[in-house]
């Protein structure tokens, strides 16, 4: 399974939840597969999906799922200690770990080599870390949504991309409709 296959399995679970999606193909695939006002698409700013998700979860009580990439978590590795030391009951970080910088042509990341992001998250102090195979991701997300705790899920999937159009939505429009969903 590649990233878009994993996202497809998640849609029935997360369609109505607040979701922050990472720069590049993760956002574009979510936009193509299931565009929702409850999706906050990052159009740039590699690395900050988990930080945006955590800030949002800390500011209000609804569940928040940040769908991040292995390369982006590696770029903002400081996010894991921040998540570990500010555990809230409503935050899920789902790292789609395809072992590559998928959006830029599948160059291998260090997570695709010797580095285990699940081990890094545990070492940073995250209490609930789940590493799963791509096909078990939906079950892991379902469990995390039912639990009242910060959960970090590392979904190990294959590298590969489908053809998707870029997102043409205006960023302020993405933000405004997302904020209306948060408040509603």
């Amino acid at each position, binding site marked *: 399974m590649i990233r878009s296959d994993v996202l497809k399995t998640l849609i029935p679970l997360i369609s109505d939840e607040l979701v922050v999606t990472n720069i590049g193909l993760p956002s574009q695939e979510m936009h193509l597969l299931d565009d929702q006002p409850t999706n906050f698409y990052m159009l740039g700013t590699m690395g900050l999906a988990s*930080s*945006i998700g955590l800030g949002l979860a*800390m500011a209000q009580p609804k569940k928040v799922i940040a769908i991040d990439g292995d390369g982006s978590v590696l770029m903002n590795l400081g996010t894991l200690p921040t998540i570990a030391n500010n555990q809230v009951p409503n935050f899920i970080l789902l790292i789609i770990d395809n072992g590559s910088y998928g959006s830029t042509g599948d160059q291998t990341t260090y997570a695709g080599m010797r580095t285990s992001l699940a081990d890094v998250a545990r070492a940073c102090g995250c209490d609930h870390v789940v590493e799963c195979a791509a096909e078990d991701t939906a079950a892991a997300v379902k469990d995390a949504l039912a639990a009242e705790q910060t959960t970090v899920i590392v979904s190990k999937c294959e590298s590969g991309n489908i053809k998707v159009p870029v997102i043409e939505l205006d960023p302020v429009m993405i933000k405004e409709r997302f904020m209306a969903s948060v408040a509603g």
Partner: protein
Amino acid sequence: MSVNDVIMDAMIENKVGFVTTVPCKQLAGVIEKIEQSDAMIHVPSNREDEGMGLCAGAFMGGRRPAIIMQNTAIGVTINALATLIQYYRIPLPMLISYRGEIGEPVACQVEMAVHTKALLDRMAIPTYHFHEEEDADELPAILNHAYMARKPVAVLMDAAFWKGY
């Protein structure tokens, strides 16, 4: 009243509800007050661009954010400012210790000080420079301005303002 209390009062008056910080010696007093305050969530961040991500999320969650950092952080936050804070129009007061100005004992700090205003100017970020203690009287209006305009706004507070470094 100490400048730290003036800064705290301005934030409380403006209903700032989420603050992220990376320390500077000059900011130690105000960070301590933020940590003790029940009026706002305080999340220390490991790097200032991470902090801007936290602030963007907190804003969309209904809280007025602010970031407290040193001017040496301007370099690592340019991308976050351009592609997140400015692109999505998120208000963000940045309360910045302006290291490397007159009275600075650490020569290396001058190296970013000489670029600080130029970078903020290049980013078209409204910038206010506090030099005298009384300059802080304008802080409540500056915070209000940032939230009204939905823009990042920089407040540079130099060594003379802090009465030392």
